[in-house]
Protein backbone atom coordinates (compact mmCIF):
# COMPACT_ATOMS: atom_id res chain seq x y z
CA UNK A 1 0.00 0.00 0.00
CA UNK A 2 2.92 2.27 0.81
CA UNK A 3 4.13 2.10 -2.77
CA UNK A 4 0.72 3.05 -4.05
CA UNK A 5 0.66 6.13 -1.83
CA UNK A 6 4.08 7.27 -2.99
CA UNK A 7 3.10 6.67 -6.61
CA UNK A 8 -0.05 8.72 -6.07
CA UNK A 9 1.99 11.63 -4.66
CA UNK A 10 4.45 11.55 -7.57
CA UNK A 11 1.56 11.32 -9.97
CA UNK A 12 -0.14 14.36 -8.47
CA UNK A 13 3.05 16.34 -8.62
CA UNK A 14 3.66 15.51 -12.28
CA UNK A 15 0.08 16.33 -13.24
CA UNK A 16 0.09 19.61 -11.32
CA UNK A 17 3.38 20.63 -12.91
CA UNK A 18 2.06 19.70 -16.35
CA UNK A 19 -0.95 21.93 -15.81
CA UNK A 20 1.57 24.75 -15.30
CA UNK A 21 3.54 23.75 -18.37
CA UNK A 22 6.46 22.38 -16.37
CA UNK A 23 8.11 18.99 -15.90
CA UNK A 24 10.20 17.36 -13.15
CA UNK A 25 13.43 17.81 -15.08
CA UNK A 26 12.69 21.42 -15.97
CA UNK A 27 11.74 20.79 -19.59
CA UNK A 28 8.84 22.38 -21.40
CA UNK A 29 6.07 19.97 -22.36
CA UNK A 30 7.07 19.98 -26.04
CA UNK A 31 10.81 19.78 -25.37
CA UNK A 32 12.78 16.61 -25.94
CA UNK A 33 15.81 15.64 -23.89
CA UNK A 34 19.41 16.21 -24.97
CA UNK A 35 20.34 13.62 -27.61
CA UNK A 36 23.80 12.09 -27.96
CA UNK A 37 24.60 9.69 -30.76
CA UNK A 38 27.75 7.57 -30.83
CA UNK A 39 28.35 5.85 -34.15
CA UNK A 40 29.84 2.36 -34.46
CA UNK A 41 30.94 1.84 -30.86
CA UNK A 42 30.74 -1.94 -31.38
CA UNK A 43 33.42 -3.33 -33.70
CA UNK A 44 31.94 -6.84 -33.79
CA UNK A 45 28.77 -5.52 -35.44
CA UNK A 46 28.50 -4.59 -39.10
CA UNK A 47 26.93 -1.36 -37.91
CA UNK A 48 26.07 0.03 -34.50
CA UNK A 49 25.04 3.12 -32.62
CA UNK A 50 24.56 4.16 -29.03
CA UNK A 51 21.93 6.78 -28.33
CA UNK A 52 21.46 8.63 -25.09
CA UNK A 53 18.34 10.73 -24.57
CA UNK A 54 18.85 12.25 -21.15
CA UNK A 55 19.49 9.19 -19.02
CA UNK A 56 17.89 6.79 -21.46
CA UNK A 57 20.67 4.76 -23.04
CA UNK A 58 20.36 2.21 -25.84
CA UNK A 59 22.80 0.37 -28.08
CA UNK A 60 21.69 -1.05 -31.40
CA UNK A 61 23.91 -3.46 -33.29
CA UNK A 62 23.30 -4.64 -36.84
CA UNK A 63 24.62 -8.03 -37.90
CA UNK A 64 24.50 -9.14 -41.54
CA UNK A 65 24.28 -12.77 -42.55
CA UNK A 66 23.31 -14.76 -45.62
CA UNK A 67 20.01 -16.60 -45.67
CA UNK A 68 17.04 -17.63 -47.78
CA UNK A 69 14.47 -15.04 -48.88
CA UNK A 70 10.78 -15.39 -48.09
CA UNK A 71 9.08 -17.44 -50.82
CA UNK A 72 6.72 -14.58 -51.70
CA UNK A 73 9.58 -12.07 -52.01
CA UNK A 74 12.37 -13.98 -53.76
CA UNK A 75 14.26 -10.81 -54.72
CA UNK A 76 14.28 -9.06 -51.37
CA UNK A 77 16.61 -9.16 -48.42
CA UNK A 78 15.25 -9.99 -45.01
CA UNK A 79 15.29 -8.02 -41.77
CA UNK A 80 14.42 -8.94 -38.23
CA UNK A 81 14.27 -6.76 -35.13
CA UNK A 82 14.61 -7.88 -31.52
CA UNK A 83 14.63 -5.78 -28.36
CA UNK A 84 16.32 -7.07 -25.23
CA UNK A 85 15.07 -5.39 -22.09
CA UNK A 86 17.22 -7.01 -19.47
CA UNK A 87 17.71 -6.24 -15.79
CA UNK A 88 20.93 -4.43 -16.65
CA UNK A 89 18.77 -1.53 -17.84
CA UNK A 90 16.18 -1.57 -15.10
CA UNK A 91 15.92 -3.81 -12.08
CA UNK A 92 12.28 -4.65 -12.73
CA UNK A 93 12.94 -5.96 -16.21
CA UNK A 94 13.12 -9.72 -16.03
CA UNK A 95 15.27 -12.37 -17.62
CA UNK A 96 13.48 -15.07 -19.58
CA UNK A 97 11.40 -15.03 -22.76
CA UNK A 98 10.53 -11.57 -24.11
CA UNK A 99 7.51 -9.90 -22.46
CA UNK A 100 4.83 -8.05 -24.39
CA UNK A 101 6.60 -4.76 -23.58
CA UNK A 102 9.81 -5.67 -25.38
CA UNK A 103 7.91 -7.33 -28.22
CA UNK A 104 5.93 -4.12 -28.70
CA UNK A 105 9.05 -1.94 -28.72
CA UNK A 106 10.78 -4.15 -31.26
CA UNK A 107 7.73 -4.40 -33.48
CA UNK A 108 7.01 -0.66 -33.52
CA UNK A 109 10.64 0.12 -34.38
CA UNK A 110 10.60 -2.66 -36.95
CA UNK A 111 7.49 -1.29 -38.61
CA UNK A 112 9.06 2.16 -38.79
CA UNK A 113 12.09 0.76 -40.59
CA UNK A 114 10.18 -1.71 -42.74
CA UNK A 115 7.18 0.37 -43.75
CA UNK A 116 9.22 3.45 -44.50
CA UNK A 117 11.11 1.31 -47.00
CA UNK A 118 14.18 2.70 -45.30
CA UNK A 119 16.41 -0.06 -46.69
CA UNK A 120 16.36 -0.85 -50.38
CA UNK A 121 15.70 -4.54 -49.86
CA UNK A 122 16.04 -5.40 -53.54
CA UNK A 123 19.73 -4.52 -53.38
CA UNK A 124 20.21 -7.21 -50.72
CA UNK A 125 19.40 -10.04 -53.11
CA UNK A 126 22.39 -12.25 -53.89
CA UNK A 127 20.70 -15.03 -55.83
CA UNK A 128 17.00 -14.81 -56.62
CA UNK A 129 14.91 -17.10 -54.48
CA UNK A 130 17.99 -18.73 -52.98
CA UNK A 131 20.29 -16.39 -51.13
CA UNK A 132 19.82 -12.87 -49.76
CA UNK A 133 21.34 -10.71 -47.07
CA UNK A 134 19.63 -10.86 -43.70
CA UNK A 135 19.89 -7.83 -41.40
CA UNK A 136 19.54 -8.59 -37.68
CA UNK A 137 18.70 -5.40 -35.78
CA UNK A 138 19.31 -5.99 -32.08
CA UNK A 139 18.17 -3.31 -29.65
CA UNK A 140 19.91 -3.61 -26.30
CA UNK A 141 18.68 -1.33 -23.53
CA UNK A 142 21.53 -0.12 -21.32
CA UNK A 143 19.63 2.25 -19.06
CA UNK A 144 15.87 2.54 -19.00
CA UNK A 145 14.63 6.06 -18.52
CA UNK A 146 11.55 6.13 -20.69
CA UNK A 147 10.90 6.42 -24.41
CA UNK A 148 12.76 3.27 -25.36
CA UNK A 149 10.99 3.31 -28.70
CA UNK A 150 12.38 6.78 -29.40
CA UNK A 151 15.93 6.08 -28.28
CA UNK A 152 15.95 2.59 -29.79
CA UNK A 153 14.43 3.73 -33.07
CA UNK A 154 16.97 6.52 -33.44
CA UNK A 155 19.81 4.14 -32.59
CA UNK A 156 18.47 1.66 -35.15
CA UNK A 157 18.42 4.37 -37.80
CA UNK A 158 21.94 5.51 -36.96
CA UNK A 159 23.24 1.94 -36.85
CA UNK A 160 21.70 1.03 -40.19
CA UNK A 161 23.06 4.21 -41.79
CA UNK A 162 26.50 3.11 -40.71
CA UNK A 163 26.28 -0.55 -41.62
CA UNK A 164 28.67 -2.12 -44.09
CA UNK A 165 27.53 -5.28 -45.84
CA UNK A 166 30.51 -7.65 -45.49
CA UNK A 167 30.29 -9.12 -48.98
CA UNK A 168 34.01 -9.65 -49.37
CA UNK A 169 34.25 -11.89 -46.36
CA UNK A 170 31.69 -14.21 -47.97
CA UNK A 171 33.40 -14.05 -51.35
CA UNK A 172 30.58 -12.29 -53.17
CA UNK A 173 32.09 -9.02 -54.34
CA UNK A 174 33.11 -5.85 -52.58
CA UNK A 175 31.75 -4.57 -49.30
CA UNK A 176 29.11 -1.90 -49.67
CA UNK A 177 27.13 0.35 -47.38
CA UNK A 178 23.62 -0.80 -46.56
CA UNK A 179 21.47 1.01 -49.14
CA UNK A 180 19.40 3.55 -47.17
CA UNK A 181 16.48 5.30 -48.85
CA UNK A 182 14.52 6.89 -46.00
CA UNK A 183 15.07 8.24 -42.51
CA UNK A 184 12.18 7.44 -40.18
CA UNK A 185 12.25 8.79 -36.62
CA UNK A 186 9.81 7.53 -33.97
CA UNK A 187 8.71 10.16 -31.45
CA UNK A 188 6.50 9.49 -28.44
CA UNK A 189 4.23 11.76 -26.44
CA UNK A 190 2.25 10.96 -23.32
CA UNK A 191 -0.92 12.36 -21.84
CA UNK A 192 -1.33 13.86 -18.36
CA UNK A 193 -5.01 14.82 -18.10
CA UNK A 194 -5.49 17.42 -20.81
CA UNK A 195 -1.75 17.98 -21.23
CA UNK A 196 0.63 16.37 -23.67
CA UNK A 197 4.36 15.89 -23.05
CA UNK A 198 6.89 14.68 -25.57
CA UNK A 199 9.82 12.29 -24.96
CA UNK A 200 8.70 11.04 -21.53
CA UNK A 201 11.06 9.83 -18.80
CA UNK A 202 10.43 6.51 -17.05
CA UNK A 203 8.49 8.05 -14.18
CA UNK A 204 6.43 10.11 -16.61
CA UNK A 205 5.59 6.98 -18.60
CA UNK A 206 4.54 5.24 -15.42
CA UNK A 207 2.02 7.85 -14.35
CA UNK A 208 0.80 8.90 -17.82
CA UNK A 209 -2.65 7.79 -18.96
CA UNK A 210 -1.43 6.71 -22.35
CA UNK A 211 1.13 7.38 -25.02
CA UNK A 212 1.20 7.76 -28.76
CA UNK A 213 4.21 7.03 -30.90
CA UNK A 214 4.41 8.39 -34.44
CA UNK A 215 7.16 7.60 -36.89
CA UNK A 216 7.69 10.23 -39.57
CA UNK A 217 9.98 9.99 -42.54
CA UNK A 218 12.09 12.85 -43.89
CA UNK A 219 9.23 13.97 -46.15
CA UNK A 220 6.89 14.37 -43.19
CA UNK A 221 4.78 11.31 -43.99
CA UNK A 222 3.54 8.98 -41.28
CA UNK A 223 5.17 5.54 -41.47
CA UNK A 224 4.07 3.95 -38.20
CA UNK A 225 1.92 4.74 -35.18
CA UNK A 226 1.24 3.01 -31.91
CA UNK A 227 -0.99 3.96 -29.03
CA UNK A 228 -0.12 2.39 -25.68
CA UNK A 229 -1.56 2.41 -22.19
CA UNK A 230 -4.98 2.07 -20.62
CA UNK A 231 -6.10 5.65 -21.27
CA UNK A 232 -7.73 7.23 -24.31
CA UNK A 233 -7.05 10.15 -26.64
CA UNK A 234 -9.56 12.54 -28.13
CA UNK A 235 -9.30 13.29 -31.83
CA UNK A 236 -8.00 16.77 -30.94
CA UNK A 237 -5.28 15.35 -28.71
CA UNK A 238 -4.16 13.06 -31.49
CA UNK A 239 -3.88 16.02 -33.85
CA UNK A 240 -1.80 17.95 -31.34
CA UNK A 241 0.53 15.00 -30.84
CA UNK A 242 0.90 14.37 -34.54
CA UNK A 243 1.86 17.99 -34.98
CA UNK A 244 4.31 18.15 -32.04
CA UNK A 245 5.87 14.80 -32.77
CA UNK A 246 6.38 15.77 -36.38
CA UNK A 247 8.34 18.86 -35.40
CA UNK A 248 10.42 16.95 -32.89
CA UNK A 249 11.23 14.26 -35.43
CA UNK A 250 12.56 16.93 -37.79
CA UNK A 251 14.73 18.39 -35.05
CA UNK A 252 16.13 15.01 -34.09
CA UNK A 253 16.73 14.02 -37.69
CA UNK A 254 19.21 16.87 -37.99
CA UNK A 255 21.44 15.29 -35.34
CA UNK A 256 22.26 12.44 -37.63
CA UNK A 257 22.48 14.53 -40.76
CA UNK A 258 20.05 12.14 -42.37
CA UNK A 259 18.00 12.73 -45.46
CA UNK A 260 18.92 16.37 -45.71
Amino acid at each position, binding site marked *: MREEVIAAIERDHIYRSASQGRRLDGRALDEHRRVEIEVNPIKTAEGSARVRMGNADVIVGVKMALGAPFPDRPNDGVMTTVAELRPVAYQYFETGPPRPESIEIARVIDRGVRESKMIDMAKLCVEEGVKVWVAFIDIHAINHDGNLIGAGGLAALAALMNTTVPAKQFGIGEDFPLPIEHYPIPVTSVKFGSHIAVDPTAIEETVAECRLTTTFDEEGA*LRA*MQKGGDGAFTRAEIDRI*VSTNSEVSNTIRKYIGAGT
Partner: protein
Amino acid sequence: MPDELRPIRMEVGVHRNADGSAYVEWGENKVLAVAYGPRELHPKHKQHPLKALVQCIYNMAAFSVGDRKRPGPDRRSQEISKVCSEALTHVVFVEEFPKATIDVYVEVLQAGAGTRCVGLTAASLALADAGIPMKGLVTACAAGKVGDRVVLDLSKEEDNHGDADLPVGIVVNTGEVVLMQMDGHLTKGEFDEAMGLIDGATRKIYEMQVAALKCKYQEVGE
Protein backbone atom coordinates in the same frame (compact mmCIF):
# COMPACT_ATOMS: atom_id res chain seq x y z
CA MET B 1 -16.71 2.74 -52.77
CA PRO B 2 -13.89 3.98 -50.51
CA ASP B 3 -16.21 4.31 -47.51
CA GLU B 4 -17.86 0.94 -47.92
CA LEU B 5 -17.75 -1.66 -45.19
CA ARG B 6 -17.62 -5.37 -45.96
CA PRO B 7 -20.70 -7.34 -44.89
CA ILE B 8 -20.89 -7.74 -41.10
CA ARG B 9 -22.95 -10.18 -39.06
CA MET B 10 -22.91 -10.20 -35.26
CA GLU B 11 -24.38 -12.60 -32.78
CA VAL B 12 -24.25 -12.33 -29.00
CA GLY B 13 -24.55 -15.07 -26.39
CA VAL B 14 -23.38 -17.91 -28.60
CA HIS B 15 -21.48 -19.90 -26.01
CA ARG B 16 -22.90 -22.06 -23.24
CA ASN B 17 -19.90 -22.25 -20.92
CA ALA B 18 -18.89 -18.58 -20.89
CA ASP B 19 -20.16 -15.62 -18.90
CA GLY B 20 -20.44 -13.71 -22.16
CA SER B 21 -19.73 -14.34 -25.82
CA ALA B 22 -20.04 -12.97 -29.32
CA TYR B 23 -19.51 -14.30 -32.81
CA VAL B 24 -18.72 -11.89 -35.64
CA GLU B 25 -18.44 -12.54 -39.35
CA TRP B 26 -16.98 -9.56 -41.15
CA GLY B 27 -15.87 -9.89 -44.75
CA GLU B 28 -13.89 -13.11 -44.80
CA ASN B 29 -13.25 -13.03 -41.06
CA LYS B 30 -14.93 -15.38 -38.62
CA VAL B 31 -14.16 -14.52 -35.02
CA LEU B 32 -15.43 -15.84 -31.70
CA ALA B 33 -14.96 -13.90 -28.46
CA VAL B 34 -15.66 -15.43 -25.07
CA ALA B 35 -15.57 -13.58 -21.74
CA TYR B 36 -15.07 -14.94 -18.22
CA GLY B 37 -15.22 -12.93 -15.02
CA PRO B 38 -14.89 -11.02 -12.89
CA ARG B 39 -13.17 -13.85 -11.01
CA GLU B 40 -10.26 -14.07 -8.60
CA LEU B 41 -6.87 -13.58 -10.25
CA HIS B 42 -4.27 -16.31 -9.76
CA PRO B 43 -1.42 -16.25 -8.91
CA LYS B 44 -2.25 -13.81 -6.12
CA HIS B 45 0.90 -11.73 -6.48
CA LYS B 46 -0.45 -10.49 -9.82
CA GLN B 47 -3.61 -9.12 -8.19
CA HIS B 48 -4.04 -5.36 -8.06
CA PRO B 49 -5.40 -4.30 -4.66
CA LEU B 50 -7.59 -1.55 -6.12
CA LYS B 51 -8.78 -2.73 -9.50
CA ALA B 52 -9.45 -5.59 -11.86
CA LEU B 53 -7.06 -6.74 -14.55
CA VAL B 54 -8.61 -6.89 -18.02
CA GLN B 55 -6.89 -9.43 -20.24
CA CYS B 56 -7.72 -9.90 -23.89
CA ILE B 57 -5.97 -12.91 -25.41
CA TYR B 58 -5.96 -12.96 -29.20
CA ASN B 59 -5.35 -16.29 -30.91
CA MET B 60 -5.42 -17.48 -34.49
CA ALA B 61 -6.54 -21.04 -35.16
CA ALA B 62 -3.91 -23.05 -37.02
CA PHE B 63 -6.24 -23.38 -40.01
CA SER B 64 -7.39 -19.76 -40.10
CA VAL B 65 -4.79 -18.57 -42.59
CA GLY B 66 -3.31 -19.57 -45.95
CA ASP B 67 -0.16 -21.22 -44.63
CA ARG B 68 -0.88 -23.19 -41.50
CA LYS B 69 -0.04 -21.19 -38.39
CA ARG B 70 1.87 -23.01 -35.68
CA PRO B 71 -0.32 -23.19 -32.57
CA GLY B 72 0.56 -20.94 -29.67
CA PRO B 73 1.31 -17.26 -29.24
CA ASP B 74 3.74 -15.56 -31.60
CA ARG B 75 5.09 -12.03 -31.36
CA ARG B 76 2.31 -10.57 -33.50
CA SER B 77 -0.49 -12.08 -31.44
CA GLN B 78 1.16 -11.01 -28.20
CA GLU B 79 1.30 -7.43 -29.41
CA ILE B 80 -2.35 -7.51 -30.50
CA SER B 81 -3.35 -9.00 -27.16
CA LYS B 82 -1.55 -6.15 -25.40
CA VAL B 83 -3.14 -3.28 -27.31
CA CYS B 84 -6.60 -4.84 -27.18
CA SER B 85 -6.29 -5.43 -23.42
CA GLU B 86 -5.39 -1.77 -22.96
CA ALA B 87 -8.33 -0.63 -25.08
CA LEU B 88 -10.82 -2.71 -23.11
CA THR B 89 -9.32 -1.76 -19.76
CA HIS B 90 -10.25 1.84 -20.51
CA VAL B 91 -13.98 1.14 -20.78
CA VAL B 92 -14.41 -1.38 -17.96
CA PHE B 93 -15.12 0.05 -14.50
CA VAL B 94 -12.10 -1.81 -13.14
CA GLU B 95 -12.29 -0.16 -9.71
CA GLU B 96 -15.44 -2.08 -8.99
CA PHE B 97 -13.60 -5.40 -8.90
CA PRO B 98 -10.36 -5.13 -6.92
CA LYS B 99 -8.07 -8.20 -7.11
CA ALA B 100 -10.16 -9.69 -9.90
CA THR B 101 -9.44 -10.62 -13.48
CA ILE B 102 -11.75 -10.25 -16.43
CA ASP B 103 -10.63 -12.33 -19.40
CA VAL B 104 -11.70 -12.25 -23.01
CA TYR B 105 -10.47 -14.91 -25.39
CA VAL B 106 -10.59 -13.91 -29.04
CA GLU B 107 -10.33 -16.83 -31.43
CA VAL B 108 -9.83 -16.09 -35.10
CA LEU B 109 -11.33 -19.08 -36.88
CA GLN B 110 -11.01 -17.71 -40.39
CA ALA B 111 -8.86 -14.70 -41.14
CA GLY B 112 -9.48 -12.12 -43.84
CA ALA B 113 -7.91 -8.69 -43.42
CA GLY B 114 -8.45 -6.66 -40.26
CA THR B 115 -8.74 -9.45 -37.69
CA ARG B 116 -7.71 -7.25 -34.77
CA CYS B 117 -10.59 -4.82 -35.41
CA VAL B 118 -13.05 -7.65 -35.73
CA GLY B 119 -11.65 -9.26 -32.59
CA LEU B 120 -11.77 -6.09 -30.52
CA THR B 121 -15.32 -5.33 -31.64
CA ALA B 122 -16.36 -8.87 -30.74
CA ALA B 123 -14.50 -8.78 -27.42
CA SER B 124 -16.34 -5.69 -26.29
CA LEU B 125 -19.66 -7.37 -27.16
CA ALA B 126 -18.67 -10.43 -25.15
CA LEU B 127 -17.88 -8.26 -22.12
CA ALA B 128 -21.23 -6.51 -22.44
CA ASP B 129 -22.95 -9.87 -22.75
CA ALA B 130 -21.19 -10.98 -19.56
CA GLY B 131 -22.76 -8.02 -17.78
CA ILE B 132 -19.43 -6.36 -17.05
CA PRO B 133 -20.12 -2.70 -16.22
CA MET B 134 -18.56 -0.53 -18.92
CA LYS B 135 -18.59 3.15 -19.75
CA GLY B 136 -19.21 2.26 -23.39
CA LEU B 137 -18.60 -0.31 -26.09
CA VAL B 138 -15.36 -0.37 -28.05
CA THR B 139 -15.84 -0.35 -31.79
CA ALA B 140 -12.95 -0.87 -34.17
CA CYS B 141 -12.35 -0.43 -37.85
CA ALA B 142 -9.34 0.09 -40.10
CA ALA B 143 -8.68 2.32 -43.05
CA GLY B 144 -5.89 1.90 -45.55
CA LYS B 145 -4.57 3.09 -48.84
CA VAL B 146 -4.75 1.37 -52.20
CA GLY B 147 -2.72 3.10 -54.82
CA ASP B 148 -3.11 6.75 -53.86
CA ARG B 149 -6.60 6.37 -52.57
CA VAL B 150 -7.61 6.23 -48.94
CA VAL B 151 -10.18 3.48 -48.44
CA LEU B 152 -12.08 1.97 -45.56
CA ASP B 153 -11.98 -1.62 -44.32
CA LEU B 154 -9.62 -3.26 -46.82
CA SER B 155 -10.35 -6.76 -47.98
CA LYS B 156 -7.60 -9.38 -47.93
CA GLU B 157 -6.93 -8.87 -51.61
CA GLU B 158 -6.64 -5.07 -51.22
CA ASP B 159 -4.58 -5.43 -48.05
CA ASN B 160 -1.91 -7.52 -49.78
CA HIS B 161 -1.33 -4.69 -52.21
CA GLY B 162 -2.15 -1.88 -49.77
CA ASP B 163 0.22 0.93 -48.92
CA ALA B 164 -1.04 1.67 -45.43
CA ASP B 165 -3.05 0.14 -42.60
CA LEU B 166 -4.60 2.20 -39.80
CA PRO B 167 -6.63 0.12 -37.32
CA VAL B 168 -8.45 2.28 -34.77
CA GLY B 169 -10.62 1.42 -31.77
CA ILE B 170 -13.12 4.05 -30.63
CA VAL B 171 -15.54 4.42 -27.74
CA VAL B 172 -18.27 5.74 -30.01
CA ASN B 173 -20.43 7.34 -27.33
CA THR B 174 -17.50 9.45 -26.06
CA GLY B 175 -15.42 9.74 -29.21
CA GLU B 176 -12.33 8.48 -27.37
CA VAL B 177 -9.63 6.62 -29.27
CA VAL B 178 -8.48 3.56 -27.28
CA LEU B 179 -6.60 1.62 -29.94
CA MET B 180 -4.48 3.10 -32.69
CA GLN B 181 -1.78 1.50 -34.75
CA MET B 182 -0.53 2.29 -38.19
CA ASP B 183 2.04 1.23 -40.70
CA GLY B 184 2.70 2.11 -44.30
CA HIS B 185 2.66 5.59 -45.77
CA LEU B 186 0.15 8.32 -45.01
CA THR B 187 0.52 12.04 -45.47
CA LYS B 188 -1.10 14.13 -42.78
CA GLY B 189 -3.94 14.89 -45.14
CA GLU B 190 -4.45 11.22 -45.87
CA PHE B 191 -4.36 10.46 -42.17
CA ASP B 192 -7.16 12.98 -41.56
CA GLU B 193 -9.16 11.51 -44.41
CA ALA B 194 -8.68 7.99 -43.04
CA MET B 195 -9.72 9.07 -39.55
CA GLY B 196 -12.84 10.63 -41.01
CA LEU B 197 -13.77 7.40 -42.77
CA ILE B 198 -13.16 5.40 -39.59
CA ASP B 199 -15.26 7.83 -37.58
CA GLY B 200 -18.26 7.30 -39.84
CA ALA B 201 -17.76 3.54 -40.05
CA THR B 202 -17.46 2.98 -36.31
CA ARG B 203 -20.79 4.78 -35.81
CA LYS B 204 -22.45 2.30 -38.17
CA ILE B 205 -20.75 -0.69 -36.58
CA TYR B 206 -21.68 0.56 -33.14
CA GLU B 207 -25.35 0.52 -34.16
CA MET B 208 -24.93 -3.11 -35.22
CA GLN B 209 -23.34 -3.93 -31.87
CA VAL B 210 -26.23 -2.35 -30.00
CA ALA B 211 -28.72 -4.19 -32.19
CA ALA B 212 -26.97 -7.51 -31.60
CA LEU B 213 -27.09 -7.00 -27.85
CA LYS B 214 -30.73 -5.94 -27.95
CA CYS B 215 -31.58 -8.93 -30.09
CA LYS B 216 -30.24 -11.29 -27.48
CA TYR B 217 -31.89 -9.52 -24.58
CA GLN B 218 -35.19 -9.53 -26.41
CA GLU B 219 -34.91 -13.25 -27.01
CA VAL B 220 -34.16 -13.74 -23.37
CA GLY B 221 -37.00 -11.42 -22.38
CA GLU B 222 -39.53 -13.26 -24.45
